[in-house]
């Protein structure tokens, strides 16, 4: 599957380069190339994941390389949705390079030394893949919230200061980024809630305990609380600008700690 993944990487790199150039030069033709390359990459990526699943006989979301690849896949899917719904092209200039990096890492990590995930594979029922898939999609949604929030903050600041940088005119309008952040946060929180719930059900059926006092669990709950706060805050008025955007940024920092940091602190959750 390595060669297919290399082709995926090539498509994403082409897409990323064109997205960045399109952002800098405002060229429509470049944007089209970027979107086509992304589409082709995504189709091949989907095929690679399915092939992985069929060949290895387990859901392709256990090992670290699989997680990275899968995360890249969810990011592309999320960006494609935002693109379809809001035409917010500048998001691609950040998302696609990140996606390329994730796929690249997935390739170089390769099938090296089987990690601690072995145990999970053996004990995994169907609930476990649901749990992890939902959470990865939630993280991707929160990444979109993060980017939209950054774009909001940049533009709001420039509008207040009345001095506009070169990229100001290339970003989507305040209303657009505000809507993207609001709806992505709602989607992300829903996925996170269901993801955590399935994790709990799976854990209780496996060893009868719902809570393990594991760092990842603690941070996940903190993340959940913060995004709940964000949603409540946003819905208490028809428009929440800067403060909501800052919560969107802070929330993503917490997501990163949950996803990568918790691993360093050890514990029950073994991958990520």
């Amino acid at each position, binding site marked *: 599957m390595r060669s297919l993944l290399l082709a995926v990487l090539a498509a994403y790199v082409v897409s990323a380069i064109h997205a960045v150039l399109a952002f800098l030069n405002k060229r*429509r033709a470049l944007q089209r190339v970027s979107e086509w390359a992304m589409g082709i990459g995504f189709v091949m990526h989907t095929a690679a994941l399915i092939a992985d699943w069929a060949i290895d006989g387990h859901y392709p979301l256990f090992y670290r390389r699989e997680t990275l690849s899968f995360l890249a896949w969810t990011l592309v899917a999320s960006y494609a949705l935002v693109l379809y719904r809001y035409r917010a092209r500048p998001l691609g200039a950040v998302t696609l390079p990140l996606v390329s990096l994730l796929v690249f890492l997935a390739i170089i990590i390769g099938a090296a030394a089987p990690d601690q995930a072995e145990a999970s594979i053996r004990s995994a029922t169907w609930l476990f893949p649901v749990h992890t898939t939902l959470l990865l999609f939630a993280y991707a949604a929160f990444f979109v919230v993060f980017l939209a929030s950054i774009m909001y903050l940049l533009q709001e600041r420039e*509008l*207040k200061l009345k*001095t506009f940088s070169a990229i*100001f005119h290339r970003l989507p*309008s305040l*209303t657009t980024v505000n809507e993207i952040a609001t709806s992505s946060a709602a989607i992300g929180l829903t996925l996170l809630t269901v993801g955590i719930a399935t994790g709990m059900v799976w854990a209780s059926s496996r060893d009868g305990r719902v809570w393990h006092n594991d760092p990842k669990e603690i941070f996940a709950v903190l993340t959940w609380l913060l995004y709940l706060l964000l949603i409540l805050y946003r819905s208490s008025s*028809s428009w929440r600008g800067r403060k909501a955007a800052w919560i969107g940024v802070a929330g993503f920092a917490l997501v990163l700690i949950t996803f990568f940091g918790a691993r360093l602190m050890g514990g029950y959750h073994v991958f990520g």
Partner: protein
Amino acid sequence: MSIVLIGINHKSAPVEVREQLAFSDEACTAGLRTLVDGEIVKEGLIVSTCNRVEVLTATTQERLNETFERVNQFLEQTDKLTASAIQPHLYQHTDDAAIRHIFRVTSSLDSMVVGEPQVLGQVRRAYSIALEAGTAGRVLNRLVHHAFRVAKRVRTETGIGANAVSISYMAVELGKKIFNSLAGHTALLVGAGEMAELSARHLVNAGVSRVLLANRTADRAAQLAAELGGETVKFEALPQYLPEADIIICSTAADGYLITEQMARDSLSKRRNRPAFFIDISVPRNIDPAVGKIPNVFLFDIDDLESVISSNIREREREAERAELIVESEIMQFQQTLRVLDIGPTIGALRNKLQNVARSELLRQRNRLGPLTAEQEAAVEALLLSTVNKISHPLLSHMRRSYDASDAEAIQAWRDIFGLEE
């Protein structure tokens, strides 16, 4: 083939001179018909706008000087001033310089406000007049179409037309930046000055759904409201209507703040925090500057707008430098086109000459062939012609190469060998 351009623009002449030379559409048509005689001036086109009059002509290399004379004479006759008054303001360009000039004009690099889009339409109009008058031919057709292509390239590949450079358009641009689309949004004009009116027109064109007008003298407001399809509101009822407005433009002569911080805060909480965009183009200011500090409120006063505009103009000028590079590379391309244009008749003449030789030989020897069916006759002729074409093909392609390389000696040699006149 030579291109000659003689003209006058906002840089070379003051308006008093330019207005004496301006052509109406009818005058353009009539003028073109007298100017283009087919002998000296082969093709012609006149661009006449409030900022410029350009006479663009195509002629042959040999008659370049006569063309200059003729166009100058033509302009002097048109001019309502004396000949000596206009002469010092005219600029004259030939070939590359003329091509460069028309490319720059069409791309709006030569405009008073660099990047303004109207000039392209004006050149288009001038071209259709020349087409109707029958004075745009082989060369000018290509030149003008090429100029349109350059203008399009410049517009899409540089930011020359991006970012507003007028206060009235600034309201639209910033409004879109905040609200994305202006459709479904409401604009409130406080005071019905000229600038406010212009901004309101732009906003309506850009899709604003509802316009409210508040003016101290109801007459003026009612009149403007009728024109814009808006509603008038009582000046005293301002606080009541403020929450309904997304874009508020203030331009009254009032001495003091009409919109205070408290009013804006109240309005915003009634709007459930939806953002509001205030524009204050009055001096002294009508909106308390503290309004701009409220979250989700964006306030621009006249100085803010002016400073954004001047930075946008600087940005356009930077982009114009990139545009000049595009123009230069397109000039080279167009020269290539011109060269092919020029070689066309030569090659055609040569081919005809050789084919005529074949035909006349066939005629001379026809009796010797005896009776032939029509098919056989056609076959013999086709045989001769294709032999001639096959033999002349490498010759012709070699000739084309000489033209591409602008090898004047070789070109002259070809002409001498086959006894071709131009």
